[in-house]
């Protein structure tokens, strides 16, 4: 599924009891200097509902021990709960098998795992890796490191003025040296939803595997890795109402089995002697050391929470917020929205004439409004639009329409300060 279903859009605000859902998030009751917190930095990290917090507390108070080791009660419980979390993630993205889900420390770690495990084994001098202008630094830098080490070459897919990938140009980049594609599903800086299904199919026609950075997509779009047929898919828990420090890498079992381990240590081995180590089977081969057990279990609880609401409903509600916010922002003179793709998630990057994004962020903060300002770890995107930085408001399903109004009022205050 490349796009979200927009047919529900008009009724989205009344579809579910969103106020009741919002009440699940204790942090949203915070006041910043006496003003209610208006949290519009969800693309950086989302907030955690009480249900997930409670799950973490229950784990730490009644279930914690190290996993895959001892025969005692707690170890068995923790091992089982950790495995259940893996199975929840498998269901969430419709992976064929649970062993195709590797717990990592997050999206960046997942991408580095593929670079070390796949890239360092299979990419050779003269080979080409295709990336896009929209990539987050985390899907650029590891491949540059590999390219430098191996003498491989990075080719970059350009974007148009709306912030959409030029897919025709992507297709022209393929040749017999193309060995890997790294592709962001949804741009963190602009919100553009990329036509990844078409791009994956094209790469596969050339026998090239594709890694999808799904950090910004998984919270907002139904991801079906079998339908997409992607080779790797990576995302983090903390953008999905889960804890920091954990994420997953999905990989097709055959590929994961062919790869070399990334980190060495306990749990990733079948047997060790000083002469020879035999590696464990997947997923354990890639989970050296004690994993973030509590965080992974919290991740599972966050997935339960989101699936109970439904990603489809979430997407429809957020799109309604996006449309409303876009409309309001377009009416303010001097405000320019960067990234106007036809298919977007609820992310709005914008600039205000003559005012630096950091000043915008600081003054909005005065009204309790949290937005992200800066280059969003996507400097090639900033360079493409010839801006050093932008301000970015990113919405979640617990945001209100009145919070969009507060943002608009805040932007007008910023303009007044600099008048």
């Amino acid at each position, binding site marked *: 599924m490349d796009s979200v279903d927009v047919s529900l859009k008009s009724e989205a605000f009344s579809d579910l009891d969103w106020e009741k859902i919002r009440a699940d998030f204790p942090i949203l009751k915070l006041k910043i200097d006496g003003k209610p917190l208006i949290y519009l930095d969800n693309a950086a990290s989302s907030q955690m509902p009480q249900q997930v917090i409670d799950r973490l507390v229950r784990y730490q108070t009644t279930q914690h021990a190290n996993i895959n080791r001892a025969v005692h009660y707690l170890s068995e419980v923790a091992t089982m709960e950790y495995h259940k979390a893996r199975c929840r993630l498998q269901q969430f993205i419709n992976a064929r098998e649970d062993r195709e889900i590797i717990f990592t420390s997050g999206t960046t770690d997942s991408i580095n795992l593929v670079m070390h495990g796949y890239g360092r084994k299979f990419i050779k001098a003269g080979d080409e890796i295709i990336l896009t202008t929209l990539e987050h630094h985390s899907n650029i830098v590891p491949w540059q490191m590999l390219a430098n080490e191996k003498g491989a070459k990075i080719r970059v897919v350009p974007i148009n003025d709306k912030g959409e990938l030029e897919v025709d140009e992507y297709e022209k980049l393929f040749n017999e040296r193309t060995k890997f594609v790294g592709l962001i599903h949804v741009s963190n800086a602009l919100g553009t939803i990329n036509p990844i299904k078409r791009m994956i199919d094209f790469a596969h026609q050339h026998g090239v595997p594709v890694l999808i950075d799904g950090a910004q997509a998984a919270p907002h779009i139904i991801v079906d890795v079998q339908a997409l047929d992607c080779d790797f898919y990576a995302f983090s828990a903390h953008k999905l109402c889960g804890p920091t420090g954990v994420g997953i890498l999905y990989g097709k079992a055959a590929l994961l089995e062919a790869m070399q381990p990334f980190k060495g240590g306990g749990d990733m081995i079948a047997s060790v002697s000083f002469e020879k180590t035999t590696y464990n089977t997947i997923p354990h081969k890639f989970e050296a050391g004690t994993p973030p057990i509590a965080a992974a279990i919290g991740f599972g609880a966050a997935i339960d929470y989101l699936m109970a609401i439904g990603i489809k409903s979430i997407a429809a509600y957020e799109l309604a917020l996006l449309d409303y916010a876009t409309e309001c922002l377009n009416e303010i003179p001097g405000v320019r929205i960067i990234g106007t793709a036809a298919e977007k998630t609820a992310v709005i990057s914008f600039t205000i004439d003559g005012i630096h994004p950091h000043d915008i962020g600081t003054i909005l903060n005065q009204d309790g409004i949290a937005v992200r300002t800066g280059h969003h770890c996507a400097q090639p995107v*900033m360079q493409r639009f010839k801006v050093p930085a932008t301000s970015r408001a990113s919405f979640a399903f617990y945001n209100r329409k009145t919070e969009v109004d507060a943002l608009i009022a805040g932007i007008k205050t910023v303009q007044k*300060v*600099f008048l």
Partner: protein
Amino acid sequence: MVTKSLYQEVILDHNRKPRNYGKLDYASHHAVGHNPLCGDRLDITLQLENDQINNIAFEGESCAICKASASMMTAAVKGRSRLDAEILIHEFRELATGKLDIDHPHHLGRLTIFSGIRDLPTRVKCAILPWHTLQAALNSIDNASTENNDSAQAVSSKL
């Protein structure tokens, strides 16, 4: 409110009409300052003769805090000795990081308008970048960075 006092008329005035903005054609010292966290960039050129700053200019892409700090800094050090400038650099850093007691004697004058920045840790670097770059220029270091406090160890040539 911290932010209100920070964006006072004087800072906004320096942001709108920065003093000593541009690049000196004949500079004895030059440095470029970067804040890699926000991509801000500041270029400082100055003429130092007999340990006196005869002229100084700055240009670059930056936020209002950084630009106003640079503007007021150039106005404050122009015509002063290197030693005076170094004292101001030290005092301004202490001010921005909340270590300076402004009730005790100091040389900052109107620059104390930046005292509120200490309550905004993410913005301290914006205010300090020009001073950091000035110090690098005085020490003939081409590149300064808010992420490298040991810029004095770097070596480069004088212009």
